[in-house]
């Protein structure tokens, strides 16, 4: 099978850029630790309210961990608990969330926090809030008639 010279050049160029691109993604993921939210912990979705840490949703200061705060959210149709929360600017926060019923989204608009909440699973993401202001949380996975009313708010305030 004959491949035209120009096509060879084109494919070699394309494959080289692809290789560079995938290497960047790989180094970012495995060396710098930029992995998408992939928490493997499970939970009984019918007992969320009595399971730690979801029995006390909200912001909690923690000691001796790689992060300063844990920010716990419980999602259910069609709201988030807490409905509004203040976080000190510059704080290193682990967001921990789950759902009590159907699949919900957990997206903090204007940030990289964006994860699926699925019944039976806990979702986590570590982040630093380094910009002050109000950040809107929206459900970005269809969950029923009130899906577009499902919202919460993170207020990042000067520490």
């Amino acid at each position, binding site marked *: 099978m*004959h491949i035209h010279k120009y096509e060879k050049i084109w*494919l070699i160029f394309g494959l080289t850029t692809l290789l560079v691109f995938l290497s960047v993604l790989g180094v970012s993921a495995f060396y710098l630790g930029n992995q998408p939210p*992939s928490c493997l*912990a499970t939970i009984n979705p019918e007992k969320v309210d009595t399971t730690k840490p979801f029995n006390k949703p909200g912001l909690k200061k923690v000691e001796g961990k790689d992060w300063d705060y844990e920010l716990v959210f419980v999602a259910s149709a069609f709201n988030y608990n807490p409905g509004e929360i203040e976080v000190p600017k510059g704080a290193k926060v682990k967001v921990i969330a789950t759902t009590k019923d159907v699949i919900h989204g957990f997206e903090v608009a*204007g940030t990289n926090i964006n994860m699926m909440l699925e019944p*039976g699973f806990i979702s986590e993401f570590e982040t630093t809030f380094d910009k002050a202001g109000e950040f*809107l949380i929206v459900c970005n996975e269809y969950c*029923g008639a009130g899906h*577009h009313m499902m919202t919460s708010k993170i207020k990042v305030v000067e520490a």
Partner: protein
Amino acid sequence: MKSNVMKMVDRRDGKLAMAHFYVAFIALAIGGLAGLLQTLVRSGKFVLPAGIGYYQILTVHGVVLGLVLTTFFIMGFQLAAVSKTAGTLTKRQRTIAWIGFWLMTIGTLMAATMILLNKASVLYTFYAPLQAHALYYIGLTLVIVGSWFDGAAIVIAYIAWRKANPGQPSPLLTFMSLVNTLLWIVATIGVAATVLLQLLPWSLGLVDRVDVLVSRTLFWYFGHPLVYFWLLPAYMAWYVVIPKVIGGKIFSDSLARMSFILFLLFSIPVGFHHQLTEPGIDPAWKFLQVILTFLVVIPSLMTAFSLFATFESYGRSKGAKGLFGWLKVLPWNDARFTVPFIGMLSFIPAGAGGMVNASHQLNQVIHNTIWVTGHFHLTLATAVILTFFGITYWLVPHLTGRTLTKAMNKLAIIQAVFWATGMTFMSGAMHAAGLLGAPRRSSFSEYGGAAQAAEWIPYQVAQAIGGSILFIGIILMVYIFINLAFFAPKGEEEFPVGEAADEAEKTPMVFENWKLWLGITVILILFAYTIPFIDMIENAPIGSKGYKLW
């Protein structure tokens, strides 16, 4: 094999293909109207009448355009292409395909009824634990099973041709139809498994609980190859039909086959890139599937090269000079070329956006935002659908014994201009709003008066303007289809099938070795899915009961 250039598709096969097209274009009209209503609702200036829900029409839009229009059009086109290039279907093959058509049609009507009764507002992705009426799942199953019958007719016709022509490579269009059919059969096993083994027994009350993550994983095992099932028929037209329309040659028969085989291999073991932000899947396995996803870059680059090589070779053979002189001599006033060409152009930004979506980290910025909706309205709803329209302009009159008149040809080009303009507004605004965080699949909302949500609204107005222009495009398209099917003057319209420029060179028979290609396909799937799938089942949380929250 290439003597009868003007050979017509047999009347009986034509009727079969046309039956598929009638359903497809009814779907276009209904789904298009639903789409228009969605963009109007999201502008915040329009409320749906008579208690119709936003998510109800969103379900209509997704099911009717994403599953019904595409599957019917593709199967109709592929059956016509096989009949044209591998010979008229036998009575048995045609009967099997008719059974497929009726199963698909009955299934569509069942699913549509349940959606209209508001018993199935679960969107076309029907993520558990939202639970639709059992008849919705049965209807969708019939659509899939019917498509297997259509596919079986194509596979049997291919086998019969190979037997009758030992040692010969199959006709290119037949080969491509076969690859896409095999891709479809392997992919739909996933969605059939989740519907038949999980969702149906659960919606009938035979079991209480469903494993959500397993169901989603099976869905996305199907969901990504689904987009290649849409794309490959467009590639069939780009590789084989367009060269003939412009009067040029297919750049290389062998390379065209190779790119189709690569799509078969790399389009299935990649579903995790739709699940990147989900819990319960190890990120290393996600990354592996990200790499496999990006391997489709190879056949995509080959395709781009081939197409533009064909255009340039043709232009130079007409004496075009300079770096881009060949562009001027292309037949811009021929809708059969220009309409799909606009589709090809839209595939450039669409492909670039797709690379963002599939990237391990970048995906997190746009996951489930309306950027994604903007993306597949460039791929499916522009590149693919404009090519399908371009096919319609010669295939429908060919099958009905009519001709595409000059007036209709002109209207077809105007249609594409409307489409491109509307889509630029709509998809552009969707991409922009998505980057600001606007979620997809959401009715109009001010999100409690949040400042961020207020920024999204001007983009939603732009989407409504684009959506309205697109709807004019849909009216024009339906009008042209009805003309070509029933009213255009009688005559003979050509079914353009290109010849390869490298005709002298024999196509390697290795491309017809299905034990090899299906074998590699299965090995790649097992490699990408076995361990994470076992993990999912071993570490599964308690299953979910069904919810009806609409």
